[in-house]
């Protein structure tokens, strides 16, 4: 097993709070949501496991009570990036298509999907997911848009669409956010302060 301090990127003399901060940063970085539909989701999951184990090892050795998110179940499991089809279609091929996608067998998934008799919202969503995994983002976006238009209430489709619209961004260190984001936040803060000054916070 790797040195847990090295995994978290902290020195052996780091305080408990420093270790916790480093751990939280890494959890944020490798969170399954950042790698939804991503062909590297399996590597991110491994990293997450490694970070959780390192944190648990350090807290155990220091006799601390706090455990990793894994022990509480928050970041364990596969719901964030593994597909499990709950609907049904006439030939049951969608479940098989999702299985192929999870196994990164995109050509097989695409071939099977093309044989499906009906083109409903799920069909377009899966088509978009295959394109997204290939890095074909224009095609993925168009398919996701069609899926959302056909089934507007589906959150899975909406999240997928957000991932290619730039509204949902994977992990980016705060230092690397664009300055226009800072400007927007500053504007919000200014308006909030102004509102309070004008008696809006009563």
């Amino acid at each position, binding site marked *: 097993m790797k040195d847990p301090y090295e995994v978290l990127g902290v020195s052996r003399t780091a305080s408990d709070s420093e270790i916790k901060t480093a751990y939280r940063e890494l959890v944020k970085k490798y969170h399954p949501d950042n790698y939804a539909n991503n062909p590297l989701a399996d590597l*991110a999951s491994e990293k997450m496991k490694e970070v959780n184990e390192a944190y648990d090892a350090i807290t155990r050795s220091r006799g601390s009570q706090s455990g990793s998110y894994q022990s509480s179940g928050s970041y364990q499991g596969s719901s964030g990036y593994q597909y499990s089809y709950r609907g049904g279609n006439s030939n049951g091929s969608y479940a098989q298509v999702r299985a192929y996608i999870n196994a990164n067998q995109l050509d097989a998934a695409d071939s099977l999907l093309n044989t499906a008799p009906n083109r409903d919202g799920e069909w377009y969503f899966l088509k978009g997911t295959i394109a997204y995994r290939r890095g074909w983002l224009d095609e993925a976006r168009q398919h996701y848009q069609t899926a959302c238009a056909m089934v507007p209430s589906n959150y899975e489709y909406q999240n997928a669409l957000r991932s290619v619209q730039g509204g949902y961004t994977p992990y980016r260190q705060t230092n*690397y956010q664009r300055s226009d984001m800072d400007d927007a936040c500053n504007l919000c803060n200014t308006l909030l302060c102004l509102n309070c000054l004008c008696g809006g916070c009563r």
Partner: protein
Amino acid sequence: MFGYVRPRRDLLEQGGFDAYRHAYCGLCRALGKMYGFRARFLVNYDMTFLYLLRASVRCPGEAAPCWCPARVCGRKSCTLDSQGFAPVTACTVILSYEKLRDNIRDESFLRSLPYRLLFRLFRRAYRKAARAYPDFAALCEEQLSALHGLEENASPSIDATADTFARIVSGCVGDIQDSNLRRPMEQVLYHTGRFLYLADALDDLKEDCEKDAYNPLRYRFFPSDGALSSEDLTYLTELTDSSVNLAGAALSLLPVRAYGKLLENIVFLGLPSVFCAVKAGKFQAKESLWQKKKTINDHTGEKR
């Protein structure tokens, strides 16, 4: 000698920019050592990024003073890492040679004469590089042939055309055996290559419309007067931002030992800044990174 994939110098620490300069000079020196003096002219920012990415997971070489043909007196510090530079120099030579072949194919006989001359001058270097990395040379030929097919059919798919180039760029790490390193690197390079292709297409759009030449954006968005509408431009920016995000997410999975901040600067800051400048029509691919200290405004693409 230049390129799109460059750091935001104004947002780099002094040490970070020195490391970048040493790697660039090291690549130039390695090209000269392995493929002859004339190969030094092929050094560019894009391939420096490739070296930084590959070297980030191992211990990079030390910087040492070296002779530089661009400096009349004195020496320049450059990274010495012959093992690390070997695949990067080969990729540089192969890609440059294929680019010349592409130019010869696209231009008339008279206009292509300078390219034909350079093509002959770099033939020996290409053969040496292709012998050392035959899989990459074959991949380049195969994907460029696919790209020509798409161009001839005036493909409206920006994904399909960008994919051919992105596959070539991601093939630059195809020789790495460890899949835990190769897969994230391939993703970083795939999306960087895709970004490069789209940025270059946008940069050339007006000229291609005037010449009635193929450009995937022409057939995807049907621009009027060689310019995309603001909605289409926003759409394209969101697509390139998604590529930057995916490249960044893949970069986070690498066990980086060196050049971490520098690589993050290039991916998260350099690429979006370059795209802003291209959108504003103010990007100059041949602008030197070394002398000018002007920065690019994130909103307007203007230099300040």
